[in-house]
């Protein structure tokens, strides 16, 4: 298919989105990622029944935590697709990149630069 998606995205594989916890998303932002998003299977089609529903709730919780400390909860998002939807994967990557560009860089990066200076 040779589809292109923004090169700024780093893919981290997980056995199931149900394995992803709130702390994983927070650490990504804490370490300086401008955004982090979870791509799970279609709702209702999880091999483990409810892994992607668990992920959805955890993403919502991570958003709440980030909002509560002024980091912008929208930096973390959840998307769903089937493994056969390559074009959708690339579209989500572009959409997320645009969303994060609108939000601007992660404040942690600026804070870390300040520390270094």
């Amino acid at each position, binding site marked *: 298919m040779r589809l292109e998606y923004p090169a700024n995205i780093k893919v981290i594989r997980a056995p199931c989105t149900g394995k992803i916890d709130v702390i994983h998303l927070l650490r990504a932002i804490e370490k300086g990622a401008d955004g982090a998003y979870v791509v799970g299977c279609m709702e209702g089609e999880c091999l483990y029944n409810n892994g992607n529903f668990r992920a959805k709730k955890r993403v919502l919780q991570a958003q709440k935590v980030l909002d*509560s400390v*002024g980091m912008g909860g929208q930096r973390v998002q959840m998307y769903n697709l089937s493994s056969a939807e390559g074009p959708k994967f690339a579209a989500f990557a572009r959409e997320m990149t645009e969303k994060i560009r609108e939000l601007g860089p992660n404040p942690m990066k600026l804070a870390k630069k300040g520390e270094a200076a």
Partner: protein
Amino acid sequence: MIVASPKPMEEIIDTVKDCKKLLILGCNECVTVCEAGGKKEVGVLASALRMYFAKQGRQIQIDERTLERQCDHEYLEEIRDIADTYDAILSLACGVGVQFTAEKYLATVVLPGVNTCFLGATEERGLWTERCQACGACVLAKTGGICPVSRCAKRVLNGPCGGSTNGKCEISKEVDCAWQLIVDRLTALGKMDEYEQIAPLKDWSTDRAGGPRKVVKEDVQS
């Protein structure tokens, strides 16, 4: 177990805002089960606070530690060497753990990170409900194993009262009438004879009315 819920982030930020070095101290017991103050919650709170203070341009060292229990000397001793190196310890244990930590480490400020709510059970993941008020004189043998002290809004010992309608309490249609539950259970057990016996006045001196309580078991004391 003791059920707690996390304090709002703004309240926590306000209590720790003047610290330069903070230890967030979790507990592996009840607050881990009710997902308010275990290792996971310590990690999430520490990460959130680090981000908050970094964004404010403040450099605060925030460390994480979770003890097996904060209500026992032997586990609290594990932080003996480090406790006084912190400006404050933010304990995510119940009120017992916070106080025991504070009693042990007099030179360090100990702050609560959760609100201790009640003695309860895990009905399902994410839902905990009250079952016991630790009144010190258990009446469950007479009430079919359902506690009127903790589950009846009025703590009525010879119920139900006039506020019971269709098995629900007058305080809310969501709340079961404890006495309806008791009657249903005693009926199922074929023990309605016990229900007919009037419960005498309860001795509340074993409850909080008698001031702070203690339990002494001399045979195990050293």
